[in-house]
């Protein structure tokens, strides 16, 4: 793995205004609030967290499908958060996205050839025959058969549709792929097929993944490094090995302990958090996790912890990291 940074995200922030009307200024949802990380070439960085933590929004900000409120996204040294629209459009082919829902992510009125070939439309100097060959090649790469070429999305199963989504993204020859929960809508017996496909394509095409998921077993399998998010903020970021061997943030620890495993009978120390995830409309003051944290102290309620380096490559945002 080369150590070239392909993506560097700094202080990335997105506030949404909701319920705005003629008579009220609305309320602010702090979906993503000052997130910083970087992604190396050929690396898989996973973003994990529970619903509403802002991981999907982060993925869309990275691709600038939505504009950030604050912060920068440096893609190969260039800040795309502030790039003019026309220049951004030229860059788009290099960064692609794979979506969660294999139903709403494909236009039901288009055929396979149109869906996969849509991105080639903007590439100059391609003949019809060349384009067709590229589409067929890509179909083969993701495991679709040539006879699927003229079919509509509704003729496919969830797993095949997800392959279609992968083909649509990869025909652009991207360097960076954001995979937004690409497995969570699939049956267990089909998930493995897509996991293997993503892993093989990464190896063959030299991709870098930002892999967004809530399924810790799959994250552990696929990632190089893992970032844990909670209510719009990063709680912990470390290599997979470090994180699973020794989580330092109480939230990471609770999250990992809560995930059920298929090992029967192993007595495991489960940390049951109290309460639900607070609303990002009104996140707690101080450390955002303090309302549910089993080791929270007075300073946690007042002061927001900094996201700092605890050990080489191991970042944590906590006043009282575990066994430090």
């Amino acid at each position, binding site marked *: 793995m080369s150590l070239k940074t392909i993506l560097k995200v700094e202080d990335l922030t997105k506030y949404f205004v909701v319920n705005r009307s003629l008579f009220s200024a609305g309320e602010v949802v702090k979906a993503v609030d000052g997130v910083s990380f970087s992604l190396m070439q050929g690396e898989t960085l996973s973003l994990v967290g529970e619903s509403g933590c802002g991981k999907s929004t982060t993925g869309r900000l990275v691709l600038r499908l939505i504009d950030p409120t604050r912060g920068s996204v440096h893609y190969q040294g260039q800040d795309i958060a502030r790039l003019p629209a026309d220049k951004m459009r030229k860059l788009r082919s290099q960064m692609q996205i794979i979506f969660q829902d294999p139903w709403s992510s494909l236009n039901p009125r288009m055929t396979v050839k149109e869906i996969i070939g849509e991105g080639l439309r903007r590439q100059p100097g391609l003949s019809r025959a060349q384009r067709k060959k590229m589409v067929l090649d890509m179909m083969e790469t993701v495991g679709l058969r040539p006879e699927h070429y003229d079919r509509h999305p509704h003729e496919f199963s969830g797993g095949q549709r997800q392959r279609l989504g992968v083909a649509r993204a990869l025909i652009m020859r991207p360097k960076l792929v954001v995979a937004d929960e690409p497995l969570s809508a699939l049956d267990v017996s*089909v998930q493995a097929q897509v996991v*293997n496909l993503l892993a093989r394509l990464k190896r063959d095409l030299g991709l870098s993944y930002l892999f967004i998921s809530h399924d810790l*077993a799959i994250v*552990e399998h*696929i990632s190089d490094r893992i970032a844990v998010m909670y209510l719009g903020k990063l709680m912990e970021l470390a290599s997979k090995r470090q994180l*699973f061997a020794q989580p330092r943030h109480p939230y990471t620890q609770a999250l990992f302990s*809560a995930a059920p495993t*298929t090992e029967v009978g192993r007595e495991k120390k489960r940390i*049951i958090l109290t309460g*639900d995830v607070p609303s990002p409309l009104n996140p707690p003051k101080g450390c955002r996790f303090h309302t549910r944290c089993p080791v929270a102290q007075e300073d946690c309620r007042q002061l927001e912890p900094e996201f700092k380096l605890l050990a080489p490559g191991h970042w944590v945002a906590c006043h009282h990291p575990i066994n430090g």
Partner: protein
Amino acid sequence: MESLLSIENLEVSFHTSHGVAQAVCGVSYDIGRGEVLGVVGESGSGKSVTALSVLRLVPYPGRISAGRINYEGRDLLQIPEKQMRKVRGDRISMIFQEPMISLNPAFTIENQLTEALHNHRKMSQKEARERAIEMLALVDIPDPAKRIKDYPHHLSGGMRQRVMIAEALLLDPDVLLADEPTTALDVTVQAQVLDLMHRLNERIGTAIMLITHNLGVVAESARRVVVMYCGRVVEQGPVKEIFEQARHPYTQGLLKSIPKPGGRGKLYEMDGIVPSLFELPTGCPFNPRCPQRRPECGKSAPPWREVQPGHHALCWLYA
């Protein structure tokens, strides 16, 4: 263990404009008093339809075409509707996957909880309210006397699932059918709810039929496991044996295809996809995907055999 509820040769079919879908095909299993039974399967395996059949609530156009459901010496499929209503919510209750949509948005929590009580017991509104508050406290809802006045949309997903559990257990039922009770919840909330269900199982002694597609949830919660595929029970046995020495190739494949802690590299891939219920393969429904397929698998239905004491599989390998 004493059998409390037993399902025998249940068949449920859905008659649609596309044809007839055999959603449940000869399913038999039972649940013991106070037991936690895990029922696992992917979408279309018939696990939810089986649970709905127990309460005779299979939605249109589904029909229970054969089978028996034995409970307290009666066949629930034969008793009059009026008596069936006395069973529902009182002796056997059910909770559903989506806590967001399984509570009626138009009524308060109090209304919905006390309604269940009034329906089965003669009691004053005050008594019913007190019982409801007591139950809400039991499922760890903070400040239950106040929360009871809320509408469902005031509560978070985890809270609503607790309300559902509270309601289901109001009348100390013998069996709780829990259909994917944690699937819509976040991992940390799922852990809370599962933990709660365990405590209640131990405390009240209600047997729980835990229906889920999540193998991890079953491994950590159930004592016995039923594995379903395409409307059939393909394997059944003690949880430890199922997860450590699965006998049916489907169960084996399913377990191999989920990532293991510390594992890396290629995951085991099962061939193909879950077939449509309208076009099930002949013989064993798993045979086109089965790595150990034999000639007889595509021809006739496999036998149900005991492979170890208390551990059965539906497969030609053990004929």
